[in-house]
């Protein structure tokens, strides 16, 4: 069982982090980020070419993170690999001792630095969930062939309470749970009111009892970053109050205001029934993680024996 699964099962309010691999072959970048996260989070998502930019492979960066004492969550998207390659990577990650797997459809290739690439999308994120679940539980590949030593997995998926159509978002979560998700990490929440409404729909369907839901949070560095997320990042909902609060920060104080805002959101989502923890995405600002987790009163992290 992975540490993430143990902590969630214990009922402790769980904290996961995020680490973006470098656009280079430099392992030091990962080691430095890992040192900033170790001890403050229960597991760390390692992204898989996020925003379609070429970066070190998730599994490879996970391995480096493990050598620094992190428990990784391998992120896996369907953008760059077909079902054959995805299953090969699931076998490989499991053989390397990685248990947490986050199944994603993936950002469209047009966002990244190789917009002329062919997007694979042989399968979608929900179908990947089912493949992973069947590899673990049925000991079968998608082809139906048996797996002699099946992968040991704790399977996750993403959910975006802010994408369209709103009424469909809880239904889509139900589809992901039915396909095999053990845990869910949500899109970054700035609109807590809308997130709470989504959670209400989730509870109505009893989904919070079937899957662990980690609320996505992220500190904002500046008013400009808030505006950028509001207008440019797909699937984000950044209310004007959030932009205004960042914009009203005194000179040189924006980062402090951003951290305080993040802590406020953590305190709010923690009160919502069915939220099992947070997924803290301080991307390229890993230094902020320790302070946020501490200010939110989430230290020390549970030390559970395997």
């Amino acid at each position, binding site marked *: 069982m992975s540490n993430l699964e143990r902590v969630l099962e214990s009922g402790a309010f769980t904290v996961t982090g995020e680490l973006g691999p470098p656009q280079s072959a430099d392992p030091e970048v990962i080691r430095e980020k890992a040192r900033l996260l170790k001890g403050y989070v229960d597991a760390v998502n390692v992204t898989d070419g996020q925003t379609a930019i070429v970066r070190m492979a998730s599994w490879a960066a996970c391995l480096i993170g493990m050598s620094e004492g992190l428990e990784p969550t391998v992120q896996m998207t369907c*953008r760059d690999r077909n*079902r054959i390659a995805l299953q090969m990577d699931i076998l490989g990650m499991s053989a390397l001792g990685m248990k947490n797997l986050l199944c994603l*459809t*993936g*950002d*469209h290739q*047009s*966002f990244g630095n190789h917009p002329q690439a062919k*997007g694979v*999308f*042989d*399968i*979608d*994120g*929900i*179908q990947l969930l*089912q493949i992973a679940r069947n590899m673990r539980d049925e000991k079968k590949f*998608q082809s139906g062939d048996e797996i002699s030593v099946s992968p040991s997995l704790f399977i996750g998926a*993403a*959910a*975006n309470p802010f*994408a*369209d*159509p709103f009424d*469909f978002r809880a*239904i*889509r979560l*139900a*589809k992901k749970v*039915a*396909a095999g998700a053990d845990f869910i990490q949500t*899109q970054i929440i700035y609109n807590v009111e809308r997130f709470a409404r989504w959670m209400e729909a989730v509870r109505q369907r009893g989904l919070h009892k079937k899957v662990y839901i980690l609320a996505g949070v992220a500190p904002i560095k500046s008013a400009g970053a808030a505006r950028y997320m509001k207008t440019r990042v*797909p*699937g984000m909902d950044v209310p004007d109050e959030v932009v205004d609060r960042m914009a009203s920060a005194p000179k040189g104080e924006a980062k402090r205001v951003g951290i305080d805002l993040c802590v406020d959101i953590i305190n709010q989502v923690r009160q919502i029934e069915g939220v099992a923890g947070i997924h803290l995405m301080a991307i390229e600002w890993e230094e902020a993680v320790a302070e946020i987790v501490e200010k939110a009163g989430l230290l020390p992290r549970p030390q559970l024996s395997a």
Partner: protein
Amino acid sequence: MIVAEQKPLEEIRRMIIPYERVLILGCGTCMTVCDAGGEREVSFLHSALRVAQAKSGNETHTFSEYTLKRQCDPEFLDVLDDKIDDVDTVLSLGCGIGVQALAERFPALPVLPGVNTSFMGMAKELGVWDERCAACGDCRLEETAGICPITRCTKGILNGPCAGTKNGKCEANKDMDCAWVLIYKRLERLEQLEKMRRYYPMRNFRAIPRPKRITSKISVDVVDVGEDNG
């Protein structure tokens, strides 16, 4: 129908450099309807090539023009038999199928593509065509309210909409409708929203090997192909 765009004049001029006598060959079906390679476009391109040649001053191509009823059917190509002896190449304004039909029918004749074949679609408004079918060979339009996610979702996913949709638009293009939001809204209107709750399994790409071949189920003897079938 098949929709295409004519290639830029400069690209066409580069392609014809090795050839003296060029036959510009239009197509009377899809390429005529989508304004890419019908009789009118053949005539315009003919004029444009002549003007460009006159301006450059040091080229000696001779051009002729003709438009077939249809380039993608071998029997419509017979009329070319006595035309190709007098030319060094055919610049086809047919779709990619037309170009290849010519190449198969006339093994010794260089054939050049004058259009970029783009998609199968329909006229959305005057002069605007939208892609609608990906010829995937495994039609599921019954399940998706008559809106094709393979074609119209930029990721072609079967369990959409993905998390990137915003205000009903696609994450990859703010001006493009999210196919799965369209499907959702139409299913809602048809009172078939339960179809959105279903899990749709992976596509079977083996069902659609490329290149495909379809054999008519009607006996060849009884099919009478008339002259006016174009």
